[in-house]
């Protein structure tokens, strides 16, 4: 039941109750047996005949009959006879050719050429004239068949009503819920396209759903605003910091150019210069990520031999790894080509490997592989270092996130993996991380292979 859409649920509810109602109606109709219908026909006949006695009066030597006498009320034909059986007034149903004897107050059931009749006579003494008979005739067949028609009619109309209710109910619900669909679509579009400028925009309306959509739009306005402000803030801050850093670097440069500087001062200034460069680097990375967020970072795509490039990065990083006695081994399939931005690809791999070195153990190992896999190039960097705990693993892509909160590390900005993720995704690829605390980490990326 939970998997059904609201539309279907409401429709099913309508239909269910409508079916229940129909079944009840049909049950009532069927439970009225033939007997009861016939009994009711007989009663009507008797009642009509009895009541008609008042309609017959003798005045000034002739009968005066009320117009009611000819009315065929309840399908009963009334007629007036003399004591000897001669018809005076009234109507005889078409096809009734029998001339049964009069029997006062007795109901007779007669058959004639396939049709059944009820006949009921009453003797009536009229002052001034004498005895007359009033005869009522009612067609049994007609009563039965009209009942059968009613029944058949019900059998057709009621289920039809159920279907009609279901269809109308479905259409109506769908119409009512269409704005909800639109809200869902908008939110999904925002999620897939990362486009916060989209709105539901239902237009003017006052019902609950319009209010909901309106609230959504207002919320989106605020989110977009906050998001833009944050992006702008990062960008502004980074730009503002660049000028002072330029001054620091220029001053260091000038101071170091002085040849009379003693060794200690030189070291101190060199340290300042190094740290200022680190800052400049972090700012550059922040700016890059903020451009990437705003979709303004462009890639210079070229057809590259990723096999060679990966090998080059590994060779270069081996020099850094040696400082920690870490060995880098590789398994790279030759002639892998992809359309990629060379600098960013190198950047990504350098970040991955330097991370592996940074979190590796002295004398540990790093394994880099690269091979073809179903139209993709699958690369991975595995280490046997300290690993990442389950709680930390989902957060490693976040900016400035660090498993060890001490932030004592130098040269590690905490932006490396955010950049890696952005670079891989900007190339139309994906990256995943697997890790066991204390055992090591494996980062695997997939990049689309170039089709020749």
């Amino acid at each position, binding site marked *: 039941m939970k998997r059904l859409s609201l539309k279907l649920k409401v429709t099913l509810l309508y239909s269910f109750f409508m079916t229940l109602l129909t079944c009840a109606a049909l049950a009532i109709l069927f439970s009225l047996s033939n007997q009861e219908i016939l009994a009711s026909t007989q009663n009507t006949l008797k009642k009509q005949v009895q009541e008609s006695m008042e309609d017959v009066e003798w005045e000034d030597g002739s009968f005066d009959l009320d117009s009611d006498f000819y009315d065929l009320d309840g399908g009963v034909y009334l007629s007036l006879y003399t004591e000897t059986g001669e018809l005076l007034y009234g109507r005889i149903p078409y096809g009734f050719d029998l001339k049964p004897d009069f029997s006062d107050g007795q109901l007779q059931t007669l058959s004639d050429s396939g049709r059944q009749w009820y006949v009921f006579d009453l003797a009536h003494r009229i002052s001034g004239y004498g005895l007359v008979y009033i005869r009522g005739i009612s067609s049994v067949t007609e009563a039965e068949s009209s009942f059968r028609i009613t029944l058949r009619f019900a059998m057709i109309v009621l289920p039809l009503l159920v279907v009609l209710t279901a269809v109308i109910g479905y259409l109506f619900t769908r119409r009512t819920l269409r704005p909800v669909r639109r809200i869902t679509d908008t939110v999904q579009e925002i999620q897939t396209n990362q486009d916060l400028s989209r709105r539901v925009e239902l237009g003017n309306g006052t019902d609950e759903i319009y209010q909901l959509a309106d609230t959504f739009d207002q919320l989106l306005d605020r989110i977009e605003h906050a998001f833009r402000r944050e992006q702008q803030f990062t960008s502004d801050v980074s730009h503002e910091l660049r*000028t002072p850093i330029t001054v620091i670097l220029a001053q260091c440069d*000038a101071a170091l150019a002085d040849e009379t500087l003693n060794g200690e001062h030189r070291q101190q200034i060199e340290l300042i210069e190094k740290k200022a460069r680190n800052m400049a680097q972090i700012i550059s990375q922040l700016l890059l990520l903020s451009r990437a967020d705003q979709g303004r970072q462009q890639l210079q795509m070229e057809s590259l031999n990723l096999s060679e490039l990966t090998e080059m990065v590994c060779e270069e990083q081996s020099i850094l790894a040696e400082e920690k006695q870490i060995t880098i081994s590789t398994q790279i399939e030759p002639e892998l080509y992809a359309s990629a931005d060379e600098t960013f690809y190198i950047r990504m791999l350098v970040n991955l490997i330097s991370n592996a070195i940074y979190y590796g153990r002295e004398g540990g190992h790093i394994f880099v592989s690269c091979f073809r896999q179903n139209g993709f190039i699958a690369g991975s960097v595995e280490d046997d270092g300290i690993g990442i705990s389950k709680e930390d693993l989902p957060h490693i892509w976040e900016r400035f996130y660090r498993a060890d909160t001490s932030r004592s590390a130098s040269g590690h900005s905490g932006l490396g993996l955010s950049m890696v993720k952005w670079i891989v995704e900007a190339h139309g690829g994906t990256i995943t991380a697997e890790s066991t605390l204390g055992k090591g980490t494996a980062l695997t990326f997939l990049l689309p292979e170039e089709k020749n």
Partner: protein
Amino acid sequence: MHVRILIAEDEKDLNQILTSRLKAEHYSVDSCKNGREVLEYMAGAEYDALVLDIMMPVLDGLSVLKKIRQRGCTVPVLLLTAKDSIEDRVAGLDAGANDYLVKPFAFEELLARIRVLLRKPAETPSSCLQTADLKILLDTHQVFRGDTEIRLSGKEFSLLRYMMQNEGIVLSRDKLEQHIWNYDYTGGSNVIDVYIRYLRRKIDDGYEPKLIHTVRGAGYVLKVVS
């Protein structure tokens, strides 16, 4: 010959150090702090080059540049900016700048850019550079070692061209990085070393003499070692 340079930079400290260092390089330097002052200085003297910060009070660098160019003045202009996105660069070059330098920059790089700006049109480089049997064609971006054509990526080509233009000069990592990633500088790490390694593999592996050399602690140099 006396070369006059006008510097416009609103950040006092940066203005000061640039001025004093350029003076130390024997340039004659005037400095000002906003765009309007630039126009005033320009009205009073002839300059051989202009170093303009983009973000300045009163009148910003781009507006000044447009005004100068409207007057038909062709003085070479180097823009300084804290912004490094492609749009900013395009806006700067569209306004008539000759070059563009992103903060933070090494002073050495600023000097190199100024030297290029001051170079007379007659000294424009030829369309072909050659060191030993390594030859690059600047127009077609083709690279030959002997008779073999070598395929280089865009960045590898700019790197090689820069090293060949500075043949025999040791280039620091900083300088190389600034030159190659001026506009969208992603900064740091050893990306440049990977590039040099790859470049060596492509142009030096299996050939003699070796052309690219590492100078420990200083950088890289392209030259024929005799």
